[in-house]
């Protein structure tokens, strides 16, 4: 079966990527050396992954991608990355009680461990931040494995394919095609004539922010304002803030750190939800491009409004005095901080927490859930529907209402003053509808599937599980809260959520386009 695509080309190019993924494992290897941990896990992983890479590459040593091959490649690349990412988890946890370590006791235990590892790895690369890692602590897991978990989010943030385009000339040839399919948001903004340079610029900005952020966090530690923010924690969180990831090697997430650290994290989470191309303009001295950008304004406005509302609710007593988060009723600083942090984290799909918001009252939780629907900006590392799509959907609906009364009026939809192409509007409508349908259907499936194995999900739990995975957000409500875990789900539900994270990161369309073209056989 040909599937209407030259799959060999896609797979061949995949090998190139896998090969280089082995190189990134040097980071946890160094961590293992520093902490005197078992280095064989990562040495073996590297050898294994490199071998797989070389083998896969030989399927087509000189790949030439057309549009459909590009879609297939991008879709496969994220599965492949997630699969490769499981190797260190499985090896390191072999023979221990780790939930993501390889178990060979029985067929059931074996499948469950592999699915768990895949869930954790997919959650990492797609920057979701949902976890099945049972107990998160350096006592149970090595520093190296936890750092690998953080690194997967950093690699996935700006996009593994954007990274490949930036550094691998053989991928750059088909770069525009690939980036179009992977970039978060409806369209690709080419910043420079050469696509590889655009990719490099984006990664450099991303890298720059990460370095500055780590320096600030570690600086606070050196200044004595953040006792437990040591270099390991600074780098670990540096890897998961800018990609709107949300993994933390601390069981208490950012609640484990002092208030000043929390205040530092907030702006960087918000930066991660901004279109990185806008920073490129700012660096070139064109700050007005950013300030006049309709999406940026809407994003800033949405964050400000939702935060203000939530802060008032917390101040008025929406949250009980809880261990993680502290008392907010009548406390201005803490109300503001908890509101800004939770919104900064959930609106753009990061998934950190400084308060156990599942204990807040229903009003506050519904507001958080609403924020989850918004999503970051196009071209940011955030997930969700994305601000720009909501803007265009809103404008298109308003036009629809107007033209119902005036059937002859011709009215283009505009964004930041420029006209949005009608094809793009159709695509955005389809995407948004598909997103909502998948979210709803998956929530129903998760609810039924858990009942099958005798677990009863609440309404908030089932809907938030679906939303948190397709939107690459991470934490949900109820047992899936920021300090909870997805571990109790049956294997089938976890596989569905792996699928949701995957298509959520690729924004649904590339994946479904590959399926549709395969089903047509053309």
């Amino acid at each position, binding site marked *: 079966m040909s599937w209407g695509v030259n799959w060999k080309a896609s797979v061949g190019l995949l090998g190139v990527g896998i090969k280089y993924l082995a190189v990134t494992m040097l980071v946890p290897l160094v961590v293992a050396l520093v902490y005197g941990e078992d280095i064989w896990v990562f040495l073996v992983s590297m050898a294994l992954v490199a071998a797989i890479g070389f083998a896969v590459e030989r399927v087509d040593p000189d790949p030439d991608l057309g549009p459909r091959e590009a879609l297939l490649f991008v879709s496969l690349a994220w599965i492949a990355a997630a699969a490769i990412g499981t190797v260190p988890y499985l090896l390191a946890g072999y023979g221990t009680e780790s939930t993501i370590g390889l178990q060979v006791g029985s067929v059931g235990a074996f499948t469950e461990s592999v699915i768990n590892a895949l869930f954790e790895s997919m959650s990492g690369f797609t920057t979701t931040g949902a976890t099945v890692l049972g107990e998160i602590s350096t006592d149970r897991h090595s520093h190296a494995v936890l750092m690998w978990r953080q690194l997967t989010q950093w690699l996935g943030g700006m996009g593994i394919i954007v990274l490949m385009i930036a550094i691998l000339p053989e991928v750059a040839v088909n770069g525009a095609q690939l980036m179009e399919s992977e970039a978060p948001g409806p369209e690709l903004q080419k910043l420079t004539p050469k696509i590889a340079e655009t990719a490099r610029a984006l990664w450099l900005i991303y890298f720059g922010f990460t370095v500055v952020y780590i320096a600030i966090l570690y600086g606070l530690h050196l200044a004595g304002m953040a006792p437990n923010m040591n270099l390991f924690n600074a780098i670990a969180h540096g890897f998961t803030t800018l990609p709107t990831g949300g993994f933390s090697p601390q069981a208490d997430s950012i609640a484990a750190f002092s208030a000043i650290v929390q205040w530092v994290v907030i702006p960087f989470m918000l930066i991660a939800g901004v279109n990185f191309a806008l920073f490129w303009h700012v660096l070139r001295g064109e700050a007005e491009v950013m300030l006049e950008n309709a999406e940026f304004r809407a994003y800033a406005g949405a964050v400000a409004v939702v935060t203000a509302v939530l802060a008032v609710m917390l101040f008025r007593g929406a949250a009980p005095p809880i261990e993680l988060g502290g008392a907010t009723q009548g406390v201005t600083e803490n109300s503001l901080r908890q509101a800004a942090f939770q919104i900064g984290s959930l609106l753009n799909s990061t998934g950190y927490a400084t308060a156990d918001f599942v204990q807040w009252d229903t009003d506050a939780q519904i507001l958080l859930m609403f924020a989850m629907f918004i999503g970051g900006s196009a071209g940011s590392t955030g997930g969700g529907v994305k601000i720009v799509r909501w803007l265009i959907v809103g404008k298109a609906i308003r036009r629809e209402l107007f033209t119902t009364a*005036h059937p*002859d*009026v*011709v*009215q*283009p939809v*505009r964004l930041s*003053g420029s*006209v949005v192409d009608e094809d793009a509007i159709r695509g955005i409508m389809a995407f948004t509808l598909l997103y909502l349908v998948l979210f709803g259907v998956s929530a129903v499936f998760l609810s039924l599937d858990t009942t099958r194995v005798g677990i009863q999900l609440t309404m908030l739990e089932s809907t938030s599980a679906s939303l948190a995975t397709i939107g690459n957000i991470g934490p949900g409500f109820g047992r899936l809260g920021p300090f909870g875990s997805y571990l109790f789900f049956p294997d089938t539900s976890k596989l569905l959520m792996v699928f949701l994270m995957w298509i959520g990161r690729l924004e649904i369309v590339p994946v479904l386009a590959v399926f549709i073209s395969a089903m047509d056989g053309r």
Partner: protein
Amino acid sequence: MHVVVIGAGEVGTSIAGSLSSDHEVVVVDVDEDRAEQLKYEIDVLTIAGDGTTSDIQTAAEVGRADMVIACTDNDQTNLVACGTAKTLGDGFTIARVKSTDFLRTWEGSEGAFGVDFMVCTDLLTAENIVRVIGLPAAIDVDPFASGMVQMAEFEIAEESPMAGQTVAEADRFESLTFVGLFRNGELTIPRGDTGIKAGDRAVVIGSPESVQAFATDVDPRTTPDDADDIVIVGGSEIGYQTARLLGERELQPRIIEQDPDRARWLAEQLPKAVVMEHDATDTEFLSREHVDEADIVVTALRSDEKNLLVSVLAKRLGVDRVIAVVDSPDYVTVFEEIGIDIAINPRTVTAEEITRFTYESVAENIAVLENDQAEVLELELTEGCGLVGRPISELVADTDARFVIGAITRDHQLVTPRGDTVLRPGDHVILLVDSDSVGEIASMA
């Protein structure tokens, strides 16, 4: 003056006709029969041939021409003809174009295409329409500095809110200067505390937008504002430019265009205008969209027949003012006879503009006010002329000449004159001068 006119269409013939009495005119046309025929119509020398070639231009003695006017129906031909003329001599070149893109390029770079002055037919027509729509209260309106500056004269009516105000109160617009006040036929140079009475005639110079706003202050009743419904039928270049210029004056017209692609294009170019895609001769559609209740309808369709039909329809439906664009000069009177308020012919407008430009004077442009009591002049200042290098307040103090500087354009930007503004060579100055002082000003410039 030796003048060469290239293109003997309606515009060229009209220009040649009005110049032939005082000047030596050579007309070049590609059509032999047309050239032959023209010889008997007006007293000019005609040459048949391609006016863009240097052979034909040499035959027309372009080398010693004072002025070369390229006014064929084709933009590119006109530009090339001017370019060729510049290789042969140093005559002043005038090109007629339709495309506003060429005009923008030319405005952006002095002497582009070898053209010294460019007349954009469609834009000029649109400017005329907008003037007719926008300033019904004005007695006299004239454009200066290629449309960037307007001079307008208004009579202050009894019921005008401006009657009883001082000049300082009335002149509240940044880019507008109150230059003159005629009372009982006598010119007064206004000062801030000069009172305005009913029956006075006020002369202002400024950007078209500020003149429009001033008109609203003078006569809020007849001057259209954003509550007035203006409908443009036909999204031709003239229709588009009219809508654009009205938009700049805070008047948002509705546009009816039948072609879907053109309608979409218009809607993209004019964010605030409402564009409707429909056949404007469909009466059911016109009443559904309440076009019958419009205050002003402009018909700018591509054929005169359709314009006539729509104009008559609009008039019958009860539209107050109907303005029609008429392509053929012969039909202008026909339109006006059957009750269309104003018929505008783009060729006539173009020919008038070019002819106006050929008047010999120190000024590039002149408007005469109130039985020649005062003149509004546009002067291009040269290096070493008596007006440059000093603040305006000093200039006024040092001379007996009665004049007011209304506006300055510098590098195609409007500069509002103030007492401390220093004039520079290359500036275009639009000023009102008492007729008795014109000689003095001319000697300084």
